[in-house]
């Protein structure tokens, strides 16, 4: 996918774009003055007043059947995906798409501001879907400030029909990023553990889906218990733990080929794997005669290097986005607490000092926060703390919330919530305000989510 610099004539843009790549570049605003405009959404302050926004169905310049359905139907579906993404962020209040007037193709670049100004919407997203001669689709996406009657952003995406949903997510990302000033996150995926069966013998399968639950598929067949998958920065490789032959070990899974390989060949349990931000290393934990420490190993395998050697349990390591530091949990002080160290294991220091226990630290991709599970007071809660140790904030309240993972923009956290008694778990997300909490739909129960980086 490429960004079109000139979308009024989609056919012309095709000459510039080529067809196969699926890569995005940010485009400078069409009107630099609009960058200074007053239309903004406050991400951090809360969602007391989500922005009203209109996203009418996207017209097509010419009705055509494609491998993903006809262009009229796609225009409706794409508008609905953009609507759902923006609504789910908690920051927008999209109007009912089916109740909006029909937008003609020429109106896409010349909105009827007279109408929209009286609609209650502050922002307007319009677009079009066009089938190209070579089998690809072009999706155009335009954002307008309704009151100022100005264009705020425009992007175009050329996609294979099978990837049409990604064009919708890219459009929603463009709107979200322009209006919030935050990074995009809708065009991303989740790998997690799909669960079913009785509490004492849960069947656990790796599964992958788009951030919004679409394109769900299972990666493993449930023969072995699998736990704690994590994406590599390239999004094509997943590292996880599996009980193959009843021996809990870290494995690497290649999404392209479906091949799986043992990462570290040692006669001990290896677990809690995470990639380094450059993808060259895998940080993991290994239990040797009951003592668990952090190690790292080349992503291609080889001899592990030991990073901690305290008596006790050191686990749950996570790299800072620059790869220079690692946050982990340790019970060396008597109970699970968070520690930060340099990537070579030097300079270990404790950063959490509250009551109860702190576990499963995950460094935000923005670098400004560390998400964790806090245990105490009869509950397991998700919270964030600064890497220096201050500014702790608890975001959720439940019997057992556990295992946070960050959206690519570092503003939303996904985790899993286990029910008291039944032990059934499902996936939830919460934003940094702690207000916008929502369940992520999955075909079966779900745990151990890991959010991918933004797709290219």
């Amino acid at each position, binding site marked *: 996918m490429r960004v079109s610099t000139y979308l009024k004539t989609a056919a012309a843009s095709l000459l510039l774009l080529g067809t196969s790549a699926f890569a995005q570049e940010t485009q400078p605003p069409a009107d630099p003055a609009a960058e200074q405009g007053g239309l903004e959404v406050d991400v951090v302050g809360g969602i007391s007043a989500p922005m009203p926004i209109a996203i009418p169905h996207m017209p097509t310049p010419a009705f055509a059947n494609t491998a993903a359905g006809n262009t009229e139907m796609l225009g409706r579906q794409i508008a609905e995906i953009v609507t759902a993404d923006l609504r789910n962020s908690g920051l927008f209040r999209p109007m009912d798409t089916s109740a909006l007037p029909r937008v003609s193709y020429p109106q896409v670049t010349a909105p009827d501001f007279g109408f929209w100004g009286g609609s209650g919407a502050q922002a307007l997203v319009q677009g079009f879907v066009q089938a190209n001669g070579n089998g690809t689709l072009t999706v155009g996406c335009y954002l307008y400030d309704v009151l100022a009657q100005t264009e705020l952003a425009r992007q175009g995406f050329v996609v294979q029909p099978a990837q049409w949903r990604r064009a919708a997510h890219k459009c929603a990302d463009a709107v979200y990023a322009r209006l919030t000033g935050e990074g995009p996150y809708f065009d991303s995926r989740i790998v997690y553990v799909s669960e079913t069966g009785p509490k004492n013998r849960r069947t656990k399968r790796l599964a992958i889906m788009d951030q919004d639950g679409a394109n769900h598929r299972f990666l493993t067949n449930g023969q072995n218990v699998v736990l704690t998958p994590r994406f590599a920065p390239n999004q094509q490789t997943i590292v996880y733990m599996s009980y193959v032959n009843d021996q809990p070990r870290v494995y690497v899974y290649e999404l392209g080929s479906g091949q799986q390989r043992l990462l570290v060949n040692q006669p001990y349990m290896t677990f809690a794997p995470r990639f380094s931000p450059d993808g060259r290393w895998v940080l993991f934990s290994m*239990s040797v005669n009951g003592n668990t420490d952090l190690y790292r190993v080349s992503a291609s395998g080889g001899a592990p290097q030991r990073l901690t050697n305290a008596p006790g349990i050191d686990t749950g390591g996570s790299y800072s986005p620059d790869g220079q530091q690692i946050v982990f949990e340790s019970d060396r002080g008597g109970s699970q607490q968070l520690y930060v160290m340099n990537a070579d294991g030097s300079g270990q220091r404790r950063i959490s000092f509250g009551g109860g226990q702190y576990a499963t630290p995950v460094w935000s991709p923005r670098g400004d926060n560390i998400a964790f599970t806090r245990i105490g007071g009869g509950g397991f809660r998700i919270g964030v703390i600064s890497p220096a140790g201050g500014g702790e904030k608890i975001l959720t309240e439940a019997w057992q919330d556990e295992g946070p993972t960050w959206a690519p923009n570092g503003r939303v956290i996904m985790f899993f919530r286990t029910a008291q008694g039944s032990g059934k778990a499902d996936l939830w997300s919460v934003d940094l305000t702690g207000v916008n909490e929502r369940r992520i739909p999955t075909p079966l129960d779900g745990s151990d989510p890991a959010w991918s980086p933004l797709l290219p």
Partner: protein
Amino acid sequence: MNRQSLKIAALAAALALTAGCGKKTPETLPPEPPQQGQTDGGLGTDPGAGNVGGAVIPGSRADFLRSVPSDRVFFSTDSYSLDAEDRATLDAQVAWLQRNPGVLVTIEGHADERGTREYNLALGDRRANAAKNYLQSRGIAASRLNVVSWGKERPVALGSDEGAWAQNRRAVTVVPQ
């Protein structure tokens, strides 16, 4: 036709299909790494196992379960220390293991549900090793004692209360069938 022969028949059919095809049919799911025999996670400790025609085979799981007061020891919350009762349980297991020197066992460490997943894996490993170290200190060769942690993945008591959790914080000595 019993279950075993059904399996064989299915396997034979699968082989025949494979042999008949020039190309391998793509599977919905990729194959997992190769699999050897699986233990039962310490849950299916079926007393009838190893019991053929009413006679218990010496050295079998059934023999072990009949001979020792318990196949498992229990732990306090977030603890892996053994108390006097645990040591007595393990001493009885030592006696049986000494009578059956050819038997290799797996010690499974487990945790209750009220811990985070990865920490509980480490805690289960601690508990399994606590039992292993004790058996070893009483003269059982380490080479006969395999350990595996299941963390909180395989509870035996299903409630969310202290009574259930106390049963789940355990190390189980599993003798092969």
